[in-house]
């Protein structure tokens, strides 16, 4: 819009048009704002979900090879020299490194003293580097003694907060460090970082070093093997004690994030559809409400082309303001949303790429111009007389049958008029139906998704089963339970007896796990044998049945896919030259061990001659039993043996929590856009019917009756849209959930997809009415409060 146009008579018309219809202009700006914000967020998340690992890896100059080198074998100069190997393009290090077995200190979500998984701790003076340039998710970097930075995201990090403590019992002096920060290392180079000096103290002088490399070619396993060989060759024999390829990490990372993508995509598409629809609605509204004015200014001598230009300008001004504000709002909203995805993807801080902002804004404005152009062209071509004549009322005659039909209903007049109203302007009614429909579908989908994910997350697995868990023997290899190596070994039979005798025990199951060989699968496969109330331990079944006795086995989806077995087939487990054959009776929801795990009765494994004894007991308490005192009572019985009872805490769930938070945010935005779309359409409608409203009021229609009339004019649309939108949302869930499951290698039990109860469905269907009424409430109030004389005088 150039200055020349704005100061021309045309420009004056544009400006006066924008200024005069203040409510409509505000609504249009607001709607564009929300639509653009939702699109920016949706598109940003979509982009974010595309190969998040690869992008984050590139951004951090991730380490393609993380090497651990023994400083006792290789000299500092020899280690440094590896950086100059011909295949290396960049390197970082050497950093001192140690493998430690920490326990939780005070301030953690775990009871103090709980053994943690083995941690790789690296001494680094800062997060930035030429390779593996980390980002701090929160807090600061370790700058002095007794400070530690933990790896952010899924895993141990979620049990700690800034200021909580970690104790290292296997380091000299059992030091306790304070968590000062959380860092994202996409290349997964360590679990924790401290200052180099602190590391030296922790490792008691054992000189292990970490080197990080990037290579000229590192995209295939073969190339990585060659690169690794080159590093090995540059060092003395045996100096390279371990090396981790980024391809392995990529595999795990992609497996984790894959489940997230279909859901983000579904919401993104819903959001974008809604935005396109709403922009169409507001522009057609802005232009069609002006048909009469168009007639008048044409009568004053404007050419059709000038008219078209004037109205494009008129639609463009609020749209442009809305688009700019929308881009800003979208980026602000993206901060919490992307923080969720960061946690899931394990990537560093993400922002909406600039090109997304520009693309969304330009698309929105192009849509506005396109719609305005088409509509203004039609209006511009209209014969002047017709434009003046039809501008203020719907073409007479349309929807009369509906009025006649409605007036037969034994309902108050305002209700009858309201009910028939949608039929007078079918296009507008369709648009409103579309907006409410998408809103209702989004709510349905979001609710279903949230329930599905929660159901799947809480589905019984050996890690989540029961309220209390008892562990026997070593917590981790080499780490004595309760930190005391001198305790007598616990007898599983005695522990089981103690549990049975303890008041408050409803039921329990014991389990032992081991690794066995399975024909056709390279590497070991984990197997869990259950004893006790095995029926209670049933996982959620996708198909078939939970095992009912020895000789039967239940496996996850991925296992079936890997072996090509189907239910009823026999799987042969081998170990130490012995073997047992089990019949597969069911397919269970189990994503642990990457979906490669066999679940069976413990006695099924007797044939392997391993003498397996339960190492863990999962206990269900009778309702009303106090968990803490129950745990304390059991631990008192276990005082002198290597057994420990703990409350069973829900672990993990990062993906689920993030997905639920995102679903909530996106749903709120989509519903808000839908509500604004309704508001815009109702404002338009009441504006065009302002004359009728004036007449109604002159005849004694009260404000209450006016509100009822306006609200009933959208209630029918809301109901129909809800009734169509709910199945649409369910279909979306039916489509997305298996995709999400498929991405993480499991089928989803139909119980976790068919999550809607009948009352819920009814309530959701009524949600359409709620959206419609909420959108219409404000304009209904305006219509009720408007003074009729102006409308009546307007003739």
């Amino acid at each position: 819009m150039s200055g020349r146009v704005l100061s021309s008579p045309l420009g004056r018309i544009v400006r006066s048009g924008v200024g005069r219809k203040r409510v409509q202009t505000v609504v249009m700006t607001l709607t564009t704002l929300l639509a653009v914000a939702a699109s920016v967020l949706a598109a940003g998340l979509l982009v974010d979900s595309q190969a998040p690992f690869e992008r984050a890896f590139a951004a951090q100059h991730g380490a393609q090879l993380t090497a651990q080198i023994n400083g006792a074998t290789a000299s500092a100069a020899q280690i440094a020299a590896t950086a100059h190997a011909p295949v290396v393009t960049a390197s970082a290090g050497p950093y001192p490194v140690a493998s430690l077995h920490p326990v939780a200190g005070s301030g953690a979500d775990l009871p103090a003293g709980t053994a943690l998984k083995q941690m790789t701790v690296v001494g680094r003076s800062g997060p930035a580097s030429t390779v593996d340039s980390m980002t701090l998710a929160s807090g600061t970097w370790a700058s002095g003694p007794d400070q530690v930075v933990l790896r952010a995201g899924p895993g141990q990090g979620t049990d700690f907060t800034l200021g909580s403590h970690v104790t290292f019992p296997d380091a000299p002096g059992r030091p306790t460090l304070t968590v000062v920060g959380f860092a994202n290392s996409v290349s997964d180079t360590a679990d924790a970082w401290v200052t180099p000096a602190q590391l030296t103290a922790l490792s008691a002088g054992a000189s292990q070093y970490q080197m990080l490399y990037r290579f000229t070619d590192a995209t295939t396993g073969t190339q990585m093997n060659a690169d690794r060989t080159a590093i090995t060759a540059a060092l003395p024999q045996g100096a390279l004690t371990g090396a981790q390829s980024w391809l392995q990490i990529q595999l795990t990372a992609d497996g984790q994030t894959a489940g997230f993508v279909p859901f983000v995509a579904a919401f993104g598409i819903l959001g974008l559809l809604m935005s396109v629809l709403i922009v169409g609605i507001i522009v057609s509204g802005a232009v069609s409400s002006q048909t009469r004015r168009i007639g008048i200014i044409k009568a004053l001598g404007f050419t059709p082309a000038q008219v078209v230009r004037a109205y494009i300008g008129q639609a463009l001004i609020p749209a442009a303001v809305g688009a700019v504000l929308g881009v800003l709002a979208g980026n602000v909203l993206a901060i919490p949303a992307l923080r969720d995805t960061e946690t899931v993807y394990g990537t560093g801080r993400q922002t909406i790429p600039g090109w997304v902002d520009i693309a969304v804004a330009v698309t929105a404005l192009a849509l506005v111009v396109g719609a305005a152009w088409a509509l203004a062209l039609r209006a511009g071509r209209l014969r002047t007389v017709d434009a003046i004549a039809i501008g203020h009322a719907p073409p007479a005659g349309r929807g009369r049958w509906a009025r006649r039909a409605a007036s037969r209903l034994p309902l108050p007049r305002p209700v009858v008029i309201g009910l028939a109203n949608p039929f007078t302007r079918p296009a507008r009614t369709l648009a409103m139906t579309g907006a409410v429909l998408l809103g209702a579908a989004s709510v349905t989908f979001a609710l279903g998704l949230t329930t599905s994910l929660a159901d799947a997350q809480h589905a019984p697995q050996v890690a989540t089963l029961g309220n209390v868990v008892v562990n026997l023997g070593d917590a981790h290899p080499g780490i004595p339970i309760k930190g005391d190596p001198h305790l007598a070994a616990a007898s599983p039979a005695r522990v089981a007896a103690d549990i049975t005798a303890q008041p408050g025990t409803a039921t329990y199951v014991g389990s032992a796990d081991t690794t066995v060989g399975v024909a056709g699968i390279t590497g070991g496969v984990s197997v869990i044998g259950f004893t006790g109330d095995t029926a209670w331990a049933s996982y959620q079944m996708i198909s078939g049945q939970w095992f009912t006795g020895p000789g039967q086995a239940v496996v996850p989806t991925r296992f079936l896919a890997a072996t090509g077995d189907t239910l009823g087939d026999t799987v042969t487990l081998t170990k130490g030259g012995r073997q047992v054959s089990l019949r597969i009776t069911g397919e269970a929801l189990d994503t642990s061990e990457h979906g490669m795990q066999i679940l069976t009765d413990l006695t099924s494994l007797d044939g392997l001659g391993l003498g397996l004894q339960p190492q863990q007991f999962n206990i269900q308490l009778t309702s009303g039993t106090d968990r803490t005192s129950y745990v304390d009572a059991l631990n008192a019985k276990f005082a002198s043996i290597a057994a420990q009872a703990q409350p069973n805490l829900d672990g993990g769930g990062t993906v689920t929590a993030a997905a639920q938070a995102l679903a909530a945010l996106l749903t709120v935005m989509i519903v808000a856009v839908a509500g604004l779309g309704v508001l815009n359409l109702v404002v338009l409608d009441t504006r065009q019917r302002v004359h009728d409203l004036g007449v109604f009021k002159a005849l004694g229609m009260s404000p209450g009756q006016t509100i009822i009339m306006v609200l009933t004019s959208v209630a029918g649309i809301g109901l129909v849209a809800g009734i169509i939108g709910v199945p649409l949302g369910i279909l979306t869930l039916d489509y997305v959930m298996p995709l999400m499951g498929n991405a993480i290698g499991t089928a989803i039990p139909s119980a976790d997809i068919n999550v809607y109860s009948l009352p819920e469905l009814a309530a959701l269907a009524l949600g359409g009415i709620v959206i419609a009424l909420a959108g219409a409430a404000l304009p209904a109030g305006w219509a009720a409060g408007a003074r009729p004389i102006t409308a009546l005088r307007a003739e």
Partner: protein
Amino acid sequence: MRQHGVPTAAGDVIRLDGVTRTYQTGAPPALANVSLAVAAGEALAVLGPSGSGKSTLLNLLAGLDKPTSGQVTVDGVRVDTLSEAASARYRRERIGMVFQFFNLLDDLTVLDNVLLPAQLAGMPSKRAQARATELLSYLRIDRHTRAYPGRLSGGERQRVAVARALMNRPPLLLADEPTGALDTASGHEVRNLLAQLNQDGQTIVLVTHDTTLAEACATRTIELTDGRIRRDTAAVAR
């Protein structure tokens, strides 16, 4: 403003006491300190040039607008103090309105237009139907009962508007330039109709600048200039 002394009569349908209506502060008032009493059965014609405040007066009587100061009493009701909802109820029960441009709803049949006030008031449908049929035949538009207003002539449309206005048997009928949009023949028709209604006892306030209309059906005439009453035939008679 009592000192201007509006004579009080028990049968007064309308009483205006020192009514002023100013639209914009600083601008001259559209009505300036107007006091007026209209007795039941009178047909009052309000004359005056365009912009003299005639419609403003009518809107105040209809409760569509509120005076800046002064009191408006119609049929015993203090119209100027009514809430929005109460003034809607007041219009429904006590006022019938006829406009220059008919203000019929194009999407409703003649019958539905006429029924509307009764339906808004919640009159039982049987009684409303009977009343509408009676009015339509009294106003000789019963052959158009099922037609849409768009198909009628101007005179016929205005008769539908009058029927609609009389639906709830209002004590007061207000008409703003009822012949202003009509040709001579139709104007005649409406003029006779109003005269007939008044003879049957209907109190009417009629805004017009058509002196022949005023002469034909008014029992009393006032003339407004710049929001003030310049001439009142009743005052002359007294």
